[in-house]
């Protein structure tokens, strides 16, 4: 029998309308308060019109020198079950030992909309290694059937997390082409493969996937197969789209045996300094931000909508003028498109 005791009657305002003051919230997030981070992420996920306004203000308040040059935003992708979460867990152990705080966004697939669109978010269990750790914050996210494997919410959420944690990791499942999007988010992208990943090698050879900055061949404890895969990956990566001066390392690791982790860890740091020294970090983040804006507009309004404000070239120009924080400009463009839509009918 269902027994219900409505003791906590909703006497006062418990409605979602009770939105936080974005500037206050931003201050708390910058002070690294966990509750504020959680609240901020909820807000960024909220699609109600009043929440959107609030989100834009929050993101603007969080934007600054740090969001272009601070922290390290890492994208981890690879086929299902390759050991991405286990590896993230092993990496976190290292980062935490070094006293660095970590925020994780773990993206999982949603079921198709006609099947309800629900999702099982199962990465936490693999990522967490200590019962209680104030320096680690994991938010799971469903991809909500967006193409490309990474929900549009991920970019603003990463932006928020960068304000509160030293390192931000985004884990996404990548099968075939869909991991492309993570390349438009991470400062450093790491592809996790497992032994006998024939597919990965095929994709690499045919140039379907962009070359990740770091390759990790996990499950090296399984022996020879892992070494063989690592060798093949090293040979298969096509050379054209490589960045000069970066060596695209292929690391053999085992998340369960905890081997090769220090080396992998070192490569992440090395890539971060490489970007910073080459002056690439803020360029990359700005580019990623712009890519996100374009995507958001396209997804919401389609090519027709984009044309209403002058097309991609015009959007690009307007964004270029908004160095650092393009969220407000994005919202202005949205409103313009909406008002044009309205005036045209």
């Amino acid at each position, binding site marked *: 029998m*269902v*027994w*219900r005791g409505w003791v906590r009657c909703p006497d006062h305002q418990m*409605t979602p309308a009770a939105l936080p003051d974005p500037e206050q919230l931003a201050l708390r997030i910058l002070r690294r308060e966990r509750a504020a981070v959680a609240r901020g992420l909820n807000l960024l996920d909220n*699609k109600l019109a009043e929440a959107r306004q609030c989100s834009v203000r929050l993101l603007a308040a969080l934007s600054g020198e740090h969001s272009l040059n601070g922290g390290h935003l890492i994208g981890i992708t690879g086929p299902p079950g390759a050991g991405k979460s286990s590896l993230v867990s092993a990496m976190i152990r290292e980062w935490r030992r070094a006293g660095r705080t970590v925020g994780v966004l773990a993206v999982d697939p949603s*079921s198709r909309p006609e*099947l309800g669109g*629900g999702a099982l978010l199962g990465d936490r*269990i693999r990522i967490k290694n200590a019962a209680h750790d104030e320096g680690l914050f994991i938010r799971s996210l*469903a991809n909500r059937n967006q193409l490309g494997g990474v929900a549009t919410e991920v970019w603003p959420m990463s932006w928020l997390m960068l304000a509160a944690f030293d390192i931000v990791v985004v884990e996404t499942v990548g099968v075939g082409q869909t991991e492309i999007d993570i390349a438009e988010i991470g400062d450093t992208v790491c592809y996790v493969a497992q032994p006998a990943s024939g597919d990965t090698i095929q994709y690499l050879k045919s140039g379907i996937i962009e070359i990740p900055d770091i390759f990790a061949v996990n499950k090296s404890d399984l022996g020879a197969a892992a070494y063989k895969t690592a060798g093949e990956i090293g040979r298969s990566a096509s050379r054209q789209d490589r960045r000069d001066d970066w060596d695209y390392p292929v690391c053999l690791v085992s998340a369960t045996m905890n081997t090769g982790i220090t080396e992998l860890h070192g490569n992440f740091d090395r890539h971060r300094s490489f970007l910073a020294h080459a002056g690439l970090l803020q360029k990359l983040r700005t580019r990623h931000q712009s890519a996100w804006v374009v995507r958001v507009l396209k997804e919401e309004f389609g090519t027709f909508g984009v044309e209403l404000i002058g097309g991609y070239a015009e959007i690009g120009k307007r964004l270029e003028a908004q160095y650092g924080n393009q969220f407000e400009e994005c919202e202005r463009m949205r409103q313009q498109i909406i008002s044009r839509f309205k005036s045209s009918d």
Partner: protein
Amino acid sequence: MDSRQTKRDRPWLMRTYSGHSSARASNALYRTNLAKGQTGLSVAFDLPTQTGYDADNPLARGEVGKVGVPISHIEDMDQLFDQIPLDQMNTAMTINATAPWLLSLYIGLAQRRGIDPGQLSGTTQNDIIKEYLSRGTYIYPPGPSMRLIADTITYTIKHVPKWNPTNICSYHLQEAGATPVQELAYALCAAMAVLDRVQASGEIKTDEFSQVVERISFFVNAGIRFVEECCKLRAFGEMWDELTLGRYRVDDPKLRRFRYGVQVNSLGLTEPQPENNVQRIVLEMLAVVLSKGARARAIQLPAWNEAMGLPRPWDQQWALRMQQVMAFETDLLEYEDILDGSPVIAAKVKQLVEGARKEIANVEAQGGIIAAIESGYVKRELVASHMQRLRAIESGELKIIGVNCFQESAESPLTLGSDGGIMKTDPSAEREQIERLQAHRKNRNDADVQAALQGLSDAAKSGENIMPSSIRCAMAGVSTGEWGDSLRAVFGEFRPPTGIDIAIDNRAVLGKKDEVTELRARVASTGAAVGRPLKLLVGKPGLDGHSNGAEQVAVKARDVGFEVVYDGIRLTPQEIAQAAEEEGVHMVGLSILSGSHMELVTSVLEELRARDLATVPVIAGGIIPQEDAKKLAAQGVSAVYTPKDFNLNTIMADMVDVIREANGLARLGPLP
């Protein structure tokens, strides 16, 4: 014919699975049960003992002495077997991750009483594989865990030859939803994994290996489809014979006998009209006694009030009497195998054997059962089977009398008593056990303890057999938590896959399709109204390992459109509240069946409040008596569900309404 002159077979061992509150209280219970004609002991340990924690560990809070007896050190063991002659008793211990430790305490106690361990007989369950898949009292990763099993086997073969060091369990697989074919296949895979591990240890000479095979016994389930279950046991016998001959070259057919004990199915025992469980239990028992060639060696039966809470002595007595009537009043034991030669039975057995062979080959192709556990494959198969069972109950295709049909009932006198018809454990048991433990720590010789623990840790690292150093620990007065922690430090800990990541099957399994469609619409529109898709955290606080309900709620919630976070069993209230915060969920759903709901739900509520999450609604489900449900509501729990609420669609509709109400939206009411 005069039955007094007929030669009758000896009946099976009759046991009652019991233990509660304290070693002293359990000892009293055992002695009364033995006086009632019970012929062996079956010890139920509490969850801290099973998971290697001391009674005063924060993780043990609320669990000490609840679902079994707490054994923290050798003095507890001494009290548990007070006035019970160890050399004459057959003792079965349901103990797994800490099996080497409890066996060491038993051997240590025998030595202290001047009894030769060679005289000891009994069983340690000691099967870690089904712990990862169903039972949930695992501690260490698969590698070291399998080694501990191999250590107890090689040790007992040499020093405690009458002991059954491991009992491969298919019982728990069925309780987690396994079909007969799955039960056969995964249990036999588990047996192979154990035997292969012992063989690989190189500790046993080739010509002695058949002795190891002979010592492997099984613990099997028997469900209500008793004809099929009887065939399953014949199939087990056939397949075991074939396997031990073919794979392990055991030539003596006597050593290839499939020896097994039984607990009959409890998953199908119901909370509504609980008296019907008596018929179910008797019919289920029939499956394992009917065929002489495949008869159980030992039987323990659940009680009529299984789905309500723990059984009282009278309830257990009733269960024991069922066995006695079967064994002593019926003519069952006067005949040879009455099913031999039946073509119908033979055909069914063949079908089961073939199905099981195919699934075994499938697991072997994945690298064996351990690999298939680590990858999540086997657990997913079980969750999927259980889901199908629940869908069939929901749709009415599978009839459960008193639950989804024939629900009308006169008032039952059985549940009217002031105790609500269940056993209440001693509320002061936890405090007393802690005091006893702390006093014990003061009384022992610290140097001895430290030296013994060092020896244990060294053995764990070097790979030397764990038993001698564990027995030394037992004699030195080491505690259960100290033993567990020493090995945790060397081996690490493990959390197996939850298995809920099964595909949505839109064809047969979704039950009433229109209800599901309606639910999806409600979840979607409510999500739109609150601004983002509904997100649910399913939490299992405490040491409770009953995961079925949580898994099925999680899977169903996903199927109707929730975004679901479920991190598996054995989390602290703090971890659950932290996950609720980090994940930004709209609701926290707790599942607790071990009886510790009052302590645990209260703690979760406190932790949520401390994080400013008081507005997130909390619901709870499991074995929660009505009066407790009221108390929980008074503390702020929005809804409580028990096994009577078998219809998950109804629960889902209700959950959506709880979220709506908490967000100032109008309720949508029951499904049409």
